[in-house]
C-alpha cells in the first residue's frame, strides 16, 4: 500500500490476481489450512490430548460453553458449528494479514459481508423456525395489546432499522479494523525506524483476536435473542 496500489503477494505465483481477486484466493488458503489441520488431528485422536489436539479441544470447549450458556442446551449444540467455524476462519484470516507477502481476506468488505449476511438470515430463519408467526412479537416491544398500537408501530420501525443495521455494522467493524491496521503498518513502515511497526504488529495481533471474538460474540447474542423461549 505504501509503494503503490499493487503489492506483490505470495498468491500471485499461483493465481493471476486480475482474474481471481486476492480476498478469494487467501480465503481459500485459510479454508485449506483449517480443513487440513482438522483432518490431521482426526487421524491421530487420542483419549488424553497432546499438542495441537489440546489447543483445538480448548477452543472447542470455550465456544461450546459460550453457546450453551447463551442459547440453552439444544440450540447451543445445533448452532455451535456455525459459531466455531466463524471464529476460526476470521482468526486465521486476520492473522494472515500480519505476515509479509500475505493479505488478509477480511480487509476486503466482500468477505465480511459474505459472513455477516448469512448470520443475519440465520437469525431470522431460526427465529421463525422456533416461534412461527409469533416471531413478530419480538419486534413489537414490551406492551402488546390493541390499545398500544402506536407504540407497537413505532417499536416495529425502530427494531426493523436496528435489525437491518446489524449485518452492516458487523462487516464494517471488521473491515475497518483490518484496513486501518494495514494502512497504519504501511505508512509507519515507510516513515519510522523498525521498532515502531513491530509494536504495531503486536497491537495488530491483539486487535485481530479481539475483533474475531467480538464478531462471534455478537453473532451468538443475536442468535440467542432470536431463539429464546422467554416473554
Amino acid at each position, binding site marked *: 500500500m505504501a509503494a503503490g496500489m499493487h503489492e506483490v503477494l505470495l498468491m500471485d505465483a499461483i493465481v493471476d490476481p486480475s482474474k481471481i481477486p486476492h480476498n478469494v484466493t487467501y480465503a481459500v488458503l485459510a479454508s485449506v489450512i483449517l480443513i487440513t489441520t482438522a483432518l490431521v488431528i482426526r487421524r491421530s485422536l487420542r483419549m488424553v490430548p497432546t499438542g495441537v489436539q489440546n489447543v483445538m479441544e480448548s477452543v472447542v470447549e470455550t465456544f461450546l460453553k459460550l453457546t450453551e450458556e447463551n442459547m440453552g442446551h439444544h440450540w447451543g449444540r445445533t448452532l455451535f458449528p456455525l459459531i466455531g467455524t466463524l471464529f476460526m476462519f476470521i482468526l486465521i484470516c486476520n492473522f494472515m494479514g500480519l505476515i509479509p507477502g500475505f493479505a488478509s481476506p477480511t480487509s476486503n468488505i466482500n468477505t465480511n459481508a459474505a459472513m455477516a449476511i448469512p448470520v443475519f438470515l440465520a437469525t431470522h430463519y431460526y427465529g421463525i423456525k422456533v416461534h412461527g408467526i409469533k416471531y413478530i412479537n419480538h419486534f413489537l416491544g414490551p406492551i402488546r395489546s390493541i390499545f398500544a398500537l402506536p407504540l407497537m408501530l413505532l417499536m416495529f420501525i425502530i427494531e426493523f432499522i436496528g435489525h437491518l443495521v446489524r449485518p452492516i455494522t458487523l462487516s*464494517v467493524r471488521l473491515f475497518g479494523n483490518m484496513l486501518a491496521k494495514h494502512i497504519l503498518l504501511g505508512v509507519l513502515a515507510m516513515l519510522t525506524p523498525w521498532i515502531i511497526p513491530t509494536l504495531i504488529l503486536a497491537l495488530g495481533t491483539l486487535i485481530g483476536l479481539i475483533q474475531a471474538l467480538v464478531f462471534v460474540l455478537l453473532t451468538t447474542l443475536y442468535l440467542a435473542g432470536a431463539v429464546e423461549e422467554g416473554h
Partner: protein
Amino acid sequence: MRKIISVILMTLALVCLLAPFVFAEEAKAAASGDSSVKAMAAIAAGLAVGIAGLGVGIGMGIGVSKACEGSARNPGATGKIQILMIIGLAMMESVVIYALLVALGLLMNQKLFF
C-alpha cells in the same frame, strides 16, 4: 481575588486556543477558490477522526474505570468483568473506525491519499 485571576487566565487561554482558527479563516478567504475544496476536505477528515476520538476516549475511560472498580470490589468476578469490558471497548472502537472510514473516503475522493 483568586477567583478573578483564574477567570482572567482562563479567558486568555481560550483566546489563545481559538486564535489559530480565526487566522485560518482569514487565510482561507485569501486563498484561491479552486483548491478550497481539497483544503476543506482535509480539515473535515481531521475533524471527523478527532471529534470521534474525543467521545470514544471519554467513553472508554469511564468503561475501564468502572471495570477496574468492580474487579477491586469483587476479585472473584474478574474473568466475567474482563470479558464484558473487552466487548464494550470493541463496540466503542467501532464508532471511531466508522469515522476513520469517512475520513479516508473524503481524502481518497480528493486524491489526497492514494
